[in-house]
């Protein structure tokens, strides 16, 4: 019988390259819901860093950030965007802005879950200790809300 594959006997867990358990699905979901799209991006990007997946995920986060920036700009500086805003406000009244933030935040969390699904299932099955969701979640929510307010005020100038 042939010997073992040499590549399997090379250490994987070197000093700085060790993955850590991601924030739980519950934390990312609630952060997306309350922190909007920027909060969702922040917690998902944090998970990418914890999982040492930044090089794999960075393109997705950059595209989503660009889509948010462009979508926001079009919403406030194009005729079609004005129509969409008018319809949404007509449908949902004063809740329209909050609702659109929640829906886009949850959509980003969904994309993040698809990217990190295996790691999330792995962490659950192996009973890995998750980071404190209150600290990470609240920080990302506050960051997300502040960034959303700043971005909307810039767009409305």
């Amino acid at each position: 019988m042939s010997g073992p594959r040499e590549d399997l006997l090379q250490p994987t867990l070197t000093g700085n390259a060790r993955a850590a358990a991601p924030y739980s699905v519950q934390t990312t979901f609630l952060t997306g819901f309350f922190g909007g799209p920027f909060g969702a991006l922040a917690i998902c990007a944090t998970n990418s860093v914890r999982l040492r997946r930044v090089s794999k995920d960075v393109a997705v986060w950059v595209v989503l950030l660009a889509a948010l920036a462009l979508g926001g700009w079009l919403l406030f500086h194009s005729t079609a965007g004005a129509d969409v805003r008018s319809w949404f406000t007509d449908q949902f009244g004063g809740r329209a802005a909050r609702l659109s933030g929640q829906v886009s935040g949850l959509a980003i969390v969904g994309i993040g879950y698809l990217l990190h699904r295996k790691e999330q299932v792995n962490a659950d099955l192996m009973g890995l200790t998750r980071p404190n969701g209150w600290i990470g979640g609240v920080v990302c929510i506050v960051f997300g809300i502040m960034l959303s307010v700043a971005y909307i005020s810039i767009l409305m100038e």
Partner: protein
Amino acid sequence: MQQVEALLQRRRVDQARALLKPALSEHPEHAGLLLQSAWTDYLDDRNDDALATVRQVLLSDPNDDSARLLYFELLMEREDNVDAERVIIELLREYPEHAHYYGRYAQLMLKTLNFDKSRQLSLEGLKYDPDSVECLAAQTVCDFIEQPGKTTSQGLQQLLVHHPQSVRTLLLVVVSLEQRGQRREALSIARELLRAQPDNEGIVDIVKQLRLVTHWSMWPLWPVVRFGWTGSVAIWLIAVFGLNALRRSDPPLAATIGLVVFAYVVYSWVWPPILKRLMRV
């Protein structure tokens, strides 16, 4: 020593300790007795004592395989994963056809979220021993990670054929059933396991969790229990858009349903933790 060995294989820790005590007081430096004492402590969750003893054994005989394997297990328990990997790689370099070591290394890789390497290691180990319980268990967990609840795991099939009585096999069956939404069936197997190992905290937690989600008062929360956060999002979207449409045609009915939805959300947040506290295994 053979008697102690046999007792340890059956996990009869107290009896093994009782046999070891007089022998160790007579021969306190005996490496074999010390190692058995370390294994006894490890099986009894006295990991600090086990680590101190196994280090003592390794000082006198750094090449003892059993001591090195125990050292690896203890390092993994302490989450000293870098050192644990170093020890298991050294063992594999000396015993490249030892399937058990591949299985334990695969387990370490699962604990550190390296499931691709875990699968490769378990497949490599199965080349040398197709019935290795450690390699088959790691392969099964990899199957669960890649396609939860969708396929029948080949690893689990093999475990059921070759190790049908193993606690490891039955725990993986419980996980498989739970992933497929067959929670009552999972609970009945988990209860049998608990009867066999009433002190196993991991099994106690599984039974508690399964009892919680199969309790009759949880049936209104079925979409959330079955589909997790996806179910929660679906309920929220239906409530928001459905109520908004209804508000235009029948505002009083929309207000009533809105209250029901609010009560449902409160119930989903408040009741499960209360039920968990009320429940005893």
